[in-house]
């Protein structure tokens, strides 16, 4: 007579079969944006957020936060200048110097202790530019990391109709990189022109061959894209204003260049660690039930008289317990599973962490 059945737990290196398999890792990728979508087709900002911190960054939504209370930021766009140009304030002059704060924040997070400026691939005048544009994916959308080789961003100058000649299509070069650079910001890939529309990444121009310097750097583990300011300014006609002690509205210009094309496709990647529990239910066990409808009357007679010597039960739940009989995890079957003396079952319960 028993209610519980102990798992046969063997050491990991044992040749004997074990009911519990621990530390099973699965990589799961899914659409990055709201509701698991892999693309955003409409872009919105919040007047509340832009009014308070819009000179630093703009939160970008896939639904209008003014009318949809459930809308959540999908990513943020920002503009950073090494010296603070394009924002109010300078050394000795009052002002938040928002672009300097953003640039230093990014360099402090992504670069090594002895590096001051971002260095992009290639050769030309804009290898170490003074200003950058950045995209940071919202934490709840990123979860763990971006999926390299599976994102595409289109940029176009506001006011210019999106067309084949006007749209700058950006992807990363992870497909051509077998041994990526890993530094303080984790893995780093170059941002290059190209497309993943065919299902695989097709690069138009390699970063090293990009005139003036590479388009940017992609940090998948942090969900941050740092774009080469001057190169982007030329390619996407952003009309960046980089005057000293002057609010240039560059964050808004960058946002408009994304909104104008309506195309930011991306996937995220997550490593799920699981434990598998094999609940082995032999034919002679678990054939009776404490369910009050299993019996009728007050003396314990079976509700169904044919259950005598041939009882049948229906499994609907599996409970996982510790030694103190505390229920730690619960699994439900999609429909009741018939159990009898002529049936055995193995129910694999997967517990994700």
């Amino acid at each position, binding site marked *: *007579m*028993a*209610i*519980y*059945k*102990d*798992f046969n737990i063997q050491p990991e290196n044992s040749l004997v079969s074990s009911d*519990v398999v621990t530390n099973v890792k699965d990589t799961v990728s899914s659409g990055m944006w709201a509701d698991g979508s892999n693309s955003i087709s409409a872009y919105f900002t919040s007047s509340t957020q832009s009014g308070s911190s819009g000179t630093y960054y703009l939160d970008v939504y896939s639904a209008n936060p003014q009318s949809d209370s459930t809308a959540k930021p999908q990513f943020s766009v920002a503009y950073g200048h090494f010296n603070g140009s394009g924002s109010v304030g300078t050394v000795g002059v009052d002002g938040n110097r928002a672009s300097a704060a953003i640039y230093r924040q990014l360099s402090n997070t992504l670069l090594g202790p002895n590096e001051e400026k971002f260095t992009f691939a290639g050769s030309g005048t804009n290898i170490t530019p003074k200003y950058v544009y950045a995209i940071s994916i919202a934490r709840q959308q990123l979860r763990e990391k971006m999926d390299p080789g599976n994102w595409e961003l289109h940029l176009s100058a506001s006011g210019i109709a999106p067309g084949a000649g006007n749209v700058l299509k950006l992807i990363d070069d992870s497909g051509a990189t077998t041994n990526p650079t890993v530094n303080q910001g984790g893995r780093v890939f170059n941002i290059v022109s190209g497309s993943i529309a065919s299902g695989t990444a097709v690069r138009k121009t390699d970063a090293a061959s990009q005139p003036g310097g590479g388009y940017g750097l992609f940090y998948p583990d942090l969900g941050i894209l740092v774009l080469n300011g001057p190169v982007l300014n030329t390619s996407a006609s952003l009309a960046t204003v980089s005057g000293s002690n002057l609010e240039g509205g560059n964050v808004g210009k960058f946002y408009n260049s994304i909104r104008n094309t309506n195309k930011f496709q991306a996937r995220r990647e997550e490593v799920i660690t699981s434990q598998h*529990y094999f*609940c082995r239910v032999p034919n*002679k*066990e*678990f*054939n*009776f*039930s*404490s*369910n009050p*409808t*299993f*019996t009728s009357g*007050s*003396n*314990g*007679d*079976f*509700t*169904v008289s*044919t259950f005598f*010597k041939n*009882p*049948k*039960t*229906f*499994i*609907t*739940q599996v*409970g*996982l*317990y*510790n*030694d*103190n009989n*505390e*229920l*730690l*995890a*619960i*699994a*439900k079957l*999609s*429909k*009741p599973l*018939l159990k009898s003396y002529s049936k055995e079952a*193995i*129910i*694999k*319960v*997967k*517990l994700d962490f």
Partner: protein
Amino acid sequence: MGFLNNTTVTVDAILTKKGRELLAQGTEAFNITKFALSDDEVDYNLFDVTHPNGSDSFGKVIENMPLLEAIPDENHVMRYKLITLPKTTSKMPVVSLSVDSITFDTAGGLGQPNRLVTATTANVTDSSYTFILHDQSVASMIVSEGAGSGVGATTPFFLGEDDAPNSKTVVAKSVNINVGQGVNVVKATQLTIIGNDTGATNSITVTNKVTLNSIMGR
């Protein structure tokens, strides 16, 4: 010739509130060592032995029913566990109690004797029982005969977080129910008894009519 059914039963589990609590304390505390099965949601009266398609279809109504999603509150799942018993079992375990109900009358006041509640299990033996007095403000409960060392409860207390602070749970073979301190108004609660080996349950009503007004009026 048809295809062989190659489906396997694989289910995803969720952590209960207790599981999350222990996981937060560290992996040492979170140690799954055994499993149990239950048939919550199933009503065996739906097992139709007169089904025209024969014995293979007797349980069709139950087997085809959709099930609710898992609930993380460990107090409200795994209520009716499946049990392993000898094949020749003809009657299921039934928990019988020494009293059908308990009422503390006004006339007895606070001095009336304890009421002994002894549980026995007919047809199959339980080594101990879990006694749950759902509302301690109605009466008090103390162990009369203990269950011995190393005996644990089987957990299905059916108590939510709101109920738990007012309730009392003990593992024993018998308990004494006392009138306590009296009540503001006549009040009743349930005493639930669960066989720790069989999972069989029974409950009785405990009513306290000894109000504070009746005590002061004496």
